[in-house]
């Protein structure tokens, strides 16, 4: 069966690739593009470890077909930092010890960014419900929620005082 030719944008760079009909966006990110920061924890959209942004919208890459990426802008965990400057969410995860094993961390960082892009001042409850699609088995979520709230506060401060 002939492969599909997909033209898309990943982390601000133009990308062309060939894929089978059944391949997911996660498959091509990991296996074709070498972007293994997005993790496969379930393959069914339940764990959020493959969270990416599609035109700024939070999606599970395992639930998007690779062909559906055509013409869209994809941002993965590898595109969150500016070069070697960490995004404030990434920095706060480090400062607050918001990770233990780290397998879920890329998904949480991407999901948290999607939240703060929309709602720069979320309540704890809003953070908890927004992140309910991301599973973490190590932390009990406490330090993750705190890191997101603190990162949000710092980003608001930065936005005001620049």
């Amino acid at each position, binding site marked *: 069966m002939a492969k599909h030719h997909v033209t898309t944008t990943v982390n601000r760079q133009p990308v062309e690739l060939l894929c089978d009909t059944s391949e997911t966006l996660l498959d091509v990110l990991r296996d074709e593009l070498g972007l293994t920061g997005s993790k496969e924890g379930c393959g069914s959209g339940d764990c959020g470890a493959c969270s990416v942004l599609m035109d700024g919208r939070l999606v599970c890459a395992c639930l998007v077909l690779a062909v559906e990426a055509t013409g869209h802008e994809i941002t993965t965990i590898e595109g969150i930092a500016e070069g070697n400057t*960490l995004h404030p969410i990434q920095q706060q995860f480090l400062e607050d010890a918001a990770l233990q094993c780290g397998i879920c961390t890329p998904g949480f960082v991407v999901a948290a960014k999607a939240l703060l892009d929309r709602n720069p001042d979320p309540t704890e409850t809003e953070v908890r419900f927004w992140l309910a699609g991301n599973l*973490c*088995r190590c*932390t*009990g979520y406490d330090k993750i929620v705190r890191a997101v709230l603190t990162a949000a506060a710092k980003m608001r401060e930065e936005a005001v005082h620049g």
Partner: protein
Amino acid sequence: MGNEKEALKAGIEQGTYKWVGTRPIRPDGADKVTGRAAFGADLDLPGMVTGTVLRSPHAHARIRSIDTSAARALPGVLAVVTGADFPELPNEVAAGGEAPINFRHISENVIARAKVLYDGHAVAAVAATSAEIAAEALSRIKVDYEVLPHVIDVLDAMREDAPVLHEGLITNGVEPAPTKASNIAGRVEFAMGDVAQGFAEAEIIIERSYTTAAVHQGYIEPHACVASVTADGAATIWCSSQGQFMVREFCSKVLSMDIGNIRVTPAEIGGGFGGKTTVYLEPLAVALAQRSGRPVHMVMTRSEVFRASGPTSGTHVHIKLGAKRDGSFVAGEMELKYQAGAFPGSPAFLGGMTGFSCYEIPHAKAVCWDVVSNRPKCAAYRAPGAPMASFGVESAIDELAQQLNMDPLELRLKNAAKTGTRTIYGPKFLEIGYAETLQAAKAHPHWSAPLGPNQGRGIASGFWFNIGGQSSAAVHVNENGSVSVVTGNPDIGGSRASMAIMAAEVLGMDLDQVKPVIGDTGQIAYSFLTGGSRVTFATGMAVVQAAENVVEQLRQRAAKLWKIDVEHVIWRDGAAHCTKADEAARAPLSLAEIAHQAGRTGGPISGGVSINAAGAGPGFGTHICDVEVDPETGGVKVLRYTAIQDVGRAIHPSYVEGQLQGGAVQGIGWALNEEYVYDAKGRLQNAGFLDYRMPVCSDLPMIDTVLVEVPNPAHPYGVRGVGEVPIVPPLAAVANAVSRAAGLRMTDLPLSPPRLLAAIDGAKAAG
């Protein structure tokens, strides 16, 4: 040495450390927040192909034959293996780290031989050039099964007429030995005093049965590995596990390979909780790599993880607790029946050893049954075996408190184990901090906060031994005075940070000049796996000793440079200082200066230490939980949670708090939602995250922590293991809260809404 120990202890008391007890950013952090860290599934090698496993659709069946010819004929298929390709191993039990290991069972669990014993049991494996071809190949393998009657429940499995899984299984530990095979693999008993006399002295007795469901460790990273075998037979395995040396040993046994021909490189591990202390895919990947001549990449799906990797036992626990009217415990008795899964080896005996160990009970007895049934072979899960027995004991104590009209915290305090208390398994406790956790709970504002309608507060405690064991560490001084710290234990939750902190503390140097590295099996000497809450204690002790060895060498090098006797050199704040009366004005020699001149004073400076660490300090925790029960739906909301634990000494307090928080939430899931659900044919019905339903962020409040520090005198900084204790108290803390909120004693986990609603409605109907 004695003086040094005293000085270190004084340091603990005075809190004079530069790094120990601080919260620096972890050394591996940047890679983990940017997606660069390479986990088990992330490696890509030239020529790599995909390996996939065919699994049994039956709970129990005899394999009459396997025909792989159609699969082998498919273009793109490079190798197919079945049980026939693996050696038969003797049925003998070898000493393991925490529990004995029977490699025949490990091997038969990796791939079935004459029978399949559970839904998901591996039957064959294929290597192919693509995942699609591998899947097609699996569908072309014809297995002729003779389906046999199966048994899932532990009590059913113990019945005389139950289908027997292993024709040769004779119950161990029963006199006289049975003459007939059964599913009862073993019986172990622990006892002290005379329970009959104890119960005769009792003025009040609580006696009840409790059940807990089989639950999965639930790590987010599925099992994954890559194996490559060279033409001369040397195998290299890259995988996510809790111990590269464990993988090497287990693979050498299952494949009958020389251990020296296997090299295992630890990938980053995406959670384990005990579930990655054994092998599943690795021997299959090596066998496929041997036959295909290509590196083979294997990753389990989430369904495979649930169906075929270790959950922990579902249990049936019977508790009898006797006390005086003033609340003093006089006798305790427990009978534990634990599912082992398809092969013997449940942690029932660990339940028996731990269940009563928080308390001073003069007469106690624990009878522990290890029972096989048609479920996946259970694997270690965080304090294996302890949470279930403790759930029974701590529930009985709560009920006793209610009947005596006593505060449940005061009742625990009255009976708390302390220094000198004898355990049911023999030794007496040395320095422990259980009572201190209860005092901290009493002082915490949570304990006295008001409760609203339909709300209840539960308290429960828990104990875990913690272990030490074999660990190696090497400290290498680089040319510029920076330092590499190499250890042999996968970092599962931030242990690199604590290794670096301890090395920097001993060397008196800047933390950012210390780089921790996890070595592969060819780069560092043997280290027992990451488990038993042992790494910061035992491997940390090896790091401290290796760093102390380096300090000795640094003093000698400084003496050489100064041309004085080493006795006149002391090491302080990362530099050599001269103490010779007439030369004390010499400027100190920094680590960097000594390193720079190492070539002139004897060559590279490096210290390697291998130890068998003794003196792991037992751990105790006390948790407080508030819940609200919805009487209309049976739903339970956790409103507030506080976890308190004696941690000895927190090297990096944030990651210690994280252990308490994570363990508590796993325990909350165990108490409220999680369970393995089987259909009538013995097939797992909820082999996915959606239906298994671990706690998510919106289910929970913040998890408050209190770190009590009663230093462990056997560790240079006072460390006790902390990882496992926190999963012991939550089952009863939650159940006691729910029982008090609903006004009903809840004895069966999980306390899912249908079960709780049925209990509430049943109580209403009974008036």
